[in-house]
């Protein structure tokens, strides 16, 4: 099996290297063939590995492949831990990535129009793009397949790097550069916490290996450390690691970079900023469940942050007019749901939602991308409308994706979201009441913003200009095929996987359990005990509050943005005006951006200026560097006059040296 895993990881890397370094030589066709080939190998093998775990009896693999170094007793290795949790992630990541690769052929087909004429940075941009997304797939696989903290950190930073490169892919656009710098800086904050967490693990456990750390963790359950006046070690480690997850998975208040990341090309918004990379934090916390279970404080922290993100970010989605930003805020909100599930110790439900969300959110993004292609890269939903007639495939798949997103009974999102809401309701950690309320209310908001966008884009009057309207047509097959292939799991995967993932102890293989839940944290036990099959779960859901809220939201959206909108196309604006200060707060995104811009960005710039003028220029450059250089220069000028050119001076120097040595060393 080791060779299979190595192949899964290396195939995308080889594709990335070939497309990246030889892109000019192999051309466009060569670049997308080699990268798609690499990712297809990874996807097929990952699905095979997953199938072996489901229907076969694949053993858990946990071994080092390569030892990088051993320092102070800590081994730094490249190794794989492949259990069912990893297998699910591998399959999700590589499958979505494959779909996005295929889709990209259509989306980037005329990328040269996105660059200023003759820009050198636009040369071979098509090949470069494929190289980056393949590199991303490699990094993400390294992250999820890791069996140790060092490799986890490597994957963590590598996906961050590729994300940075791709957000700023159109590097001649001011806004893209601003967005990728922002993403980079915000993630620095998260990663700082993350690496401190890893350092704490290294310091107290003396190992980077997951299995060793997990095995030793219970011994440290009561260890106290003297930080901030004494906290439990586990709380400290878990919260520090979670700060990393907050950056990567865009949780409040480190969420600010994700909406801006939409400056990148749409395929990567689907792959990186919706389906996979941003879920790395969720995966990481689930992987660390043996640690989180030891700290109720950390769980509570996770829960509150997640619920806050889920509700308040969804609200912002209501006032956005950029098609991609609506989906982006929806992603933030859904990530909040996953994180809340983690806080309620329902790790399995979090991962379950992660998987279903990966499919339907990738679908929605790619559908949005398909619309954007048709609209000639115009993204304002106020200028769309009535697209259903012209793009039937995109329309149908977007409808399916939206229904999955709002949790319409029977669709995949329904199962995962209901399970989360139920688990949070059963949770007893501090803040669970607050979280439960927000998540339930969030369902209503989700339905509202999802179908607001859906109706404004696909129904109602055609509001685009004549030129655009004239050219509107369905996207090519490379774009629609991934839509169809993603729509299938978006609809069905929840139905088929809820039973193994949430009800049966499917995760456990042999004596290895990737998802450890303490007995009194077991919030999914109610679901498990009353399980009577998917149909009964759907039936039960039809009578529950979340469904009522979703249905209300859907109905309200239909009335406002479909029926009223036909008579009054300005209804959206009027409603927003009606909101008054509330709308303004939402449009300001609660002021996070302004605050960061003023306090952190402005503050660090002025601090930097002070340090630059006084510290760097005056003290270091002026006094230390130039000062010492000047004094060395003066000494050099003085000493050179020792060399007079007179022979007798030289001879005297030698005699002086002789006398000196003799007097120093010959003591009679």
């Amino acid at each position, binding site marked *: 099996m080791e060779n299979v895993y190595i192949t899964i990881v290396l195939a995308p890397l080889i594709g990335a290297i070939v497309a990246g370094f030889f892109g000019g030589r192999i051309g466009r066709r060569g670049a997308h063939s080699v990268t798609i080939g690499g990712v297809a190998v990874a996807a097929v093998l990952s699905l095979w590995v997953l199938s072996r775990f489901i229907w076969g009896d694949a053993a858990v693999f946990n071994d080092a492949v390569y030892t990088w170094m051993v320092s102070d007793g800590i081994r730094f290795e490249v190794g794989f831990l492949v259990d069912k949790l990893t297998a699910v992630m591998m399959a999700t990541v590589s499958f979505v990535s494959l779909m996005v690769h295929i889709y990209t052929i259509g989306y980037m087909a005329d990328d040269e129009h996105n660059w200023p004429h003759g820009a050198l940075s636009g040369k071979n941009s098509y090949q470069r793009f494929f190289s980056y997304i393949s590199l991303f797939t490699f990094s993400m696989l390294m992250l999820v397949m890791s069996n140790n903290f060092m490799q986890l950190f490597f994957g963590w930073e590598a996906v961050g790097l590729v994300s940075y490169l791709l957000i700023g892919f159109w590097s001649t656009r001011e806004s893209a550069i601003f967005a990728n710098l922002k993403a980079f800086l915000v993630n620095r904050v998260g990663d700082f916490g993350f690496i401190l967490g890893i350092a704490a693990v290294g310091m107290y456990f003396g190992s980077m290996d997951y299995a060793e750390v997990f095995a030793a963790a219970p011994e440290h359950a009561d260890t106290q450390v003297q930080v901030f006046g004494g906290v439990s070690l586990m709380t400290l480690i878990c919260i520090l690691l979670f700060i990393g997850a907050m950056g990567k998975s865009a949780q409040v208040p480190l969420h600010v970079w994700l909406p801006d990341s939409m400056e990148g090309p749409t395929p990567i918004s689907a792959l990186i900023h919706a389906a996979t990379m941003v879920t790395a934090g969720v995966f990481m916390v689930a992987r660390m469940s043996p640690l989180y279970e030891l700290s109720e404080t950390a769980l509570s922290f996770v829960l509150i942050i997640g619920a806050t993100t889920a509700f308040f970010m969804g609200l912002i989605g209501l006032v956005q007019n950029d098609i991609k930003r609506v989906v982006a805020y929806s992603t933030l909100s859904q990530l909040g749901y996953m994180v809340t599930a983690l806080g309620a110790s329902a790790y399995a439900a979090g991962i379950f939602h992660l998987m279903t969300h990966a499919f339907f959110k990738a679908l929605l993004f790619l559908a949005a991308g398909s619309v954007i292609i048709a609209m000639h890269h115009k993204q304002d939903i106020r200028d769309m409308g009535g697209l259903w007639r012209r793009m039937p495939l995109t329309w149908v798949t977007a409808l399916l994706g939206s229904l999955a997103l709002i949790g319409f009974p029977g669709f995949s999102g329904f199962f995962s979201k209901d399970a989360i809401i139920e688990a949070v309701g059963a949770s007893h950690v501090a803040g669970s009441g607050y979280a439960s309320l927000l998540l339930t209310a969030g369902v209503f908001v989700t339905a509202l913003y999802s179908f607001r966008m859906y109706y404004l884009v696909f129904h109602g009057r055609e509001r685009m200009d004549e030129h655009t309207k004239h050219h509107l047509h369905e996207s090519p097959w490379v774009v629609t095929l991934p839509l169809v292939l993603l729509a299938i799991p978006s609809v069905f995967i929840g139905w088929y996987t809820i039973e193994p993932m949430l009800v049966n102890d499917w995760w456990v293989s042999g004596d290895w359990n990737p998802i450890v839940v303490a007995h009194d944290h077991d919030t999914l036990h109610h679901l498990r005990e009353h399980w009577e099959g998917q149909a009964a779960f759907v039936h039960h859901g039809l009578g529950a509050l979340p469904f009522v809220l979703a249905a209300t939201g859907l109905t309200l959206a239909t009335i406002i943005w479909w029926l009223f909108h036909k008579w009054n196309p300005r209804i959206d604006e009027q409603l927003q005006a009606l909101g008054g200060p509330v709308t303004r707060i939402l449009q300001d995104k609660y002021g996070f951006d302004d605050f960061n811009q003023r306090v952190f960005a402005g503050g660090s710039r002025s601090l930097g200026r002070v340090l630059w003028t006084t510290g760097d220029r005056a003290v270091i450059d002026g006094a230390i560097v130039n000062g010492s250089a000047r004094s*060395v220069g003066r000494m050099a000028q003085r*000493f050179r006059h020792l*060399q007079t050119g007179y022979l007798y001076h030289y*001879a005297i120097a*030698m005699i002086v040296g002789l006398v000196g040595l003799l007097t120093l060393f010959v003591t009679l």
Partner: protein
Amino acid sequence: MHFDAANLIPILPEITLLITASLVLMVDLYLKEHEKGLNHTLTLIGIAIAIVLTGAVGGGEPQVFFDGNLIRDDISDLLKGAILIVSLLAFVYVRAWLQDRGMLVGEFYVLGLFAILGMLIMVSANSFLPLYLGLELQALSLYALVAFDRDSKKGAEAAMKYFVLGALGSGMLLYGVSMIYGATGSIEFAPVAQAVAEQGMSNKVLVFGIAFLVIGIGFKFGAVPFHMWVPDIYEGAPTPSVLILGSAPKIAAFALAIRMLVDGLGSLHPDWHQMLVILAVLSMGLGNLVAIAQSNIKRMLAYSTISHVGFIFLGLLAGSEQGYASAMFYSIVYAVMAAGAFGILLILSREGFDAERLEDLKGLNDRDAWYAAMMALVMFSMAGVPPTVGFMAKLLVLEAVVRVDMVWLALVAVFFSIIGAFYYLRVVKFIYFDKPADDAPLLVTTGGVRVAMSINGLVLLALGVFPAALLTLCQDAFA
């Protein structure tokens, strides 16, 4: 005294050089002006044969021959090989310069060959007598080489200074030897070492002698305060002579130090160790500081030599096998670097023009990118920038010093190295970032100079990445 023909085998390299020198001397008489190139060819062939013979007779257990006067061991094999190879490079570089000035005459080659012969004898010496004879043979040849350009006043002045100071240095060295002889009753290293070990520090005459020996060594190396001759001679002598004088003789000087101080007076290490500390610190300090103020590149390289000598002394004074091996590594590496640096100066010179000022290096990259890269490698290596071998050499020496608990000395060395980096990097800046003078032509070289210079430069890089190739040899020599 009986004579055994087997004695001749270990000194076949020396014999080869002697024969070559005599041959050149005679052949030169019959050559017409345009045939003088034959001298060059003969010399190169002679040195090449000597290199092969060094390899052939080398290896195995140490052999003492000529009644204990000469020795052949791992140290001598390695040092002889290094001296011969560096000299071979040097002779390849000098030809064009000599030819351009009508100086391609036999005398230059004869003197050069005798100097090398002297160095080889120093390396092979097992007693003070041959050591001194080799030293004088080398020194006298070099005095003449410095004055080789008879019409140059500067050359004559430099030669005069060199000769007088050299005589003073040799005199002190000889006086020291006589003290040692007086105290121990022998001039062979082994009995001297035995006697010294018995008497120890109690004998003041020994310490007195050592002080004179150290001065002699300091003079040959050019260590402060016995360095005064170095800048003036480097500046005044014709560049080919400086090339021969500034490269391989450092290896011979190392042999001088090792043979006398370690083979002969090893048990007095606590005494001479202190003296070397003083010389080393002074050399590193003064050499690096004053080099900054130089505008003449030959003078700059002279002060650079002085500072490198400080480093070689660091390895010696550590007094451990590791220290001696690192000093040996450093000496050999330095000789290669110096050959490269002066080689580039020769390449830059042309008929009626000698590259002497730093400004002459300006824009070298535009005139010949490959030579510019080689010169940059040499400068980086001298400055001790990884991954060049100069870094490894410094690192090894510092490690040896730290191992014997002299951290302060290592700190001083690093401190002055940083100052020294300035003037090496300034050369790199001239090469790459400045425009060449308007009348500077593109560089044209013939006769394998490009090959030799490429080998010279790339060896510095290769040894930096794979130092073990040379380092193991050095370590085995002292193991």
